[in-house]
């Protein structure tokens, strides 16, 4: 019973947070993409109950909300990992060996691009151009760029993230 109550409280908190965002955009239907972007950055994905709530709050059919959520790359309809690892596949990176770098990262994490691991620690993504072509091929881990890291360095970076996650799990 207690667990169920907590789940309901969590959902209530989510909807309150969504309401704040909707209010910030003055309930404007035309701001739906901007609202979804804010929801995405608040929750790191677009939870289904929040989208349903949005649909009723804005008076926009749910199908329209899902059309946008599917069309744009910034949105994720599945929970994402705590850490985002992005390999740049821009043209400059491509000619300087991005496919090889992706193969390495993918093998180390055991994930294909777009996948999140079962423990929701990592999400591996590919992106098209981060605008730092001088560092090509480049990988971004939680917002920090690394230029063509060696396998050893990648291992160290991933290990330290894993360790951080374990510590957080122990504390939590």
């Amino acid at each position: 019973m207690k667990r169920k109550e907590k789940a309901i409280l969590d959902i209530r908190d989510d909807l309150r947070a969504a309401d704040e965002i909707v209010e910030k955009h003055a309930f404007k239907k035309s701001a739906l993409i901007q609202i979804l972007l804010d929801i995405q950055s608040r929750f790191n994905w677009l939870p289904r109950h929040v989208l349903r709530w949005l649909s009723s709050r804005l008076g926009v059919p749910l199908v329209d909300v899902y059309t946008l959520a599917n069309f744009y790359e910034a949105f994720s309809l599945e929970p994402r990992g705590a850490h985002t690892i992005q390999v740049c596949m821009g043209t400059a990176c491509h000619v300087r060996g991005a496919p090889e770098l992706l193969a390495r990262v993918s093998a180390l994490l055991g994930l294909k691009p777009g996948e999140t691991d079962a423990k929701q620690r990592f999400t591996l993504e590919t992106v098209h151009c981060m605008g730092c072509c001088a560092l090509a091929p480049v990988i971004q881990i939680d917002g920090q760029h690394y230029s063509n890291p060696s396998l050893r360095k990648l291992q160290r970076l991933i290990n330290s993230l894993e360790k951080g996650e374990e510590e957080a799990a122990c504390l939590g």
Partner: protein
Amino acid sequence: MPRLTTPTDLANLRKEAITRREATPRCVTICCGTGCLATGATDLAATFEQEIEKRGLEKKVAVRRTGCHGFCERGPIVVILPENVCYLGTRPKDVPEVVDSSLVKGDLVERLLYTDPESGERMVHVDDIPFYKHQKRILLENNVLIDAGNILDYIALGGYSALARALTQMTPEEVLGEVISAELRGRGGGGFPAGWKWETTRNAPGEPKYVIVNADEGDPGAYMDRSLLEGNPHGILEGLIIGGYAIGAYEGYVYVRQEYPLAIKNTSLAIEQAREHGLLGEDLFGSGFDFDVTIHRGAGAFVSGESSALMSAIEGHVGEPRPKYIHTAAKGLWDKPTCLNNVETWANVPFIISKGAEWFRTMGTKGSKGTKIFSLVGKVNNTGLVEVPMGITLRDIVYKIGGGIPKGKKLKAIQTGGPSGGVIPESLLDLPVDFDELTAAGSMMGSGGMIVMDEDTCMVDTARYYVNFLAHEGCGKCVPCREGLRQMLNTLNRITSGRGQEGDVELLEELSEFMQQAALCALGQTAPNPVLSTIRHFRHEYEAHIRDKRCPAGVCVELIAYEIDPKKCQGCGACARNCPVDAIYEAKENVYAIDRGKCIKCGACITACPDKYQAVRKVHAEPVLQPS
């Protein structure tokens, strides 16, 4: 902050800003563009501030975080003003020495200066460095001198005086006339004359009218719009307001992709500051002209950079293009007349108004005036943003500014125009760069990506790369583009994996022609360009893949294998330790070998093998044929 209501107010504020800037005679400017931030500019700037404070120099030396300087290859970049001394690749540990010699003793830190790779000569000043010397920096020049978070920096350099002039001394028709007579062409890709577009919107019936900055820079490998918005957002705003005045629009939008958080932040800040100073809002400079700007963050879709798609996105819909029986200039955002221009186009406007159309026309070629910013990237020594007058040859860009190809490799081609453009082979290197010449060569100007490719780049793979990109980024609204790209991708995948058949090249050509004629928007119509131009100039590479099942450049993974030369292998084991899938084993004592069944061809072993051995190599391999 008091609102600026007359040009005199602006002139007074400018004087004040200049005095404030000159109060500290020297200034350490640190490039905080995306490239330099990625190499540690944030820490570097903080270290400079601490060191300067520690020595009690803060009254004499200012620290300024500026926009992108362009020479991203050698970042983080530090320029000491007024001497214009340029230090490259500066790290926080170098700071005490730089402060000591450059700021205290008036000396130089030799090892951080640019060294000419040929003569070995050290170059002290920014303008001595060949990368900068051969450029003509007009739009990028302000980036270097301005802290984007401080409107006074822009005003001190004469910012917003073009706006004051336009609003108080010129009629909207005169402003429009000036832009038409400057022959400014849109910098976003198409090269349509900006003045004509403005005029169409101005004359189109319907109120209100809108103006839009297109900063949905989706072309992979191009980042000049990002750098302009991050480094000098006021310059773009000023251009937009002037455009609004000429066109008769009271509302503007800046559409920035959300992948550019710093550009969004700096533009938002700039809009706020402009409002505080009365440069946005009601009755600008007492002219009775009202104007305001809203930022719209793009949620990531290449096709949304197309003008009608972008307008759909601002309206809150899916960013799909609309049929353009009626141009967006007449019926755009919310079906009202809308003028959309690229960031760089707007950035040119204040210069045209303050210096005149005649000045602008002195730069460039017959059909393309002014300068153009390119992002020179790929297999080139000096990667970075370069601003050059139209008409400069590709050879000058790649060799004089770019410093040639790394490791003495041979240049194969230059790709311009992004996914809508094409490749230009080495034989056409003396081609002058302007809108019409590039189009005639089967490529296009595009937004300004310039990707240099050397002998290790496979042209079929390049075509496949772009088609794959477009197939994922297209919206799927029209059948020719959606299905055409899918079939092209299938065919190219077949060719690059060694399953190509005679007739595949002709099939690609047929599909291309069909798409060029039948696709709904410019994205689909130009999508075959990378394929057609690689076939046109590198047909032999396609044939090698199809007939001999070989990738001449050694790129296509299914046609190559990695192998360790047993004669060269010294048994150090570096390759085995760096293999992510444990595919490398010790075949006999001190000689390693690769298990091809396990190998994922990630190249980690080639990088790991010490340069003095070079035992790991790529070889041509028979493709493993799978049932197709």
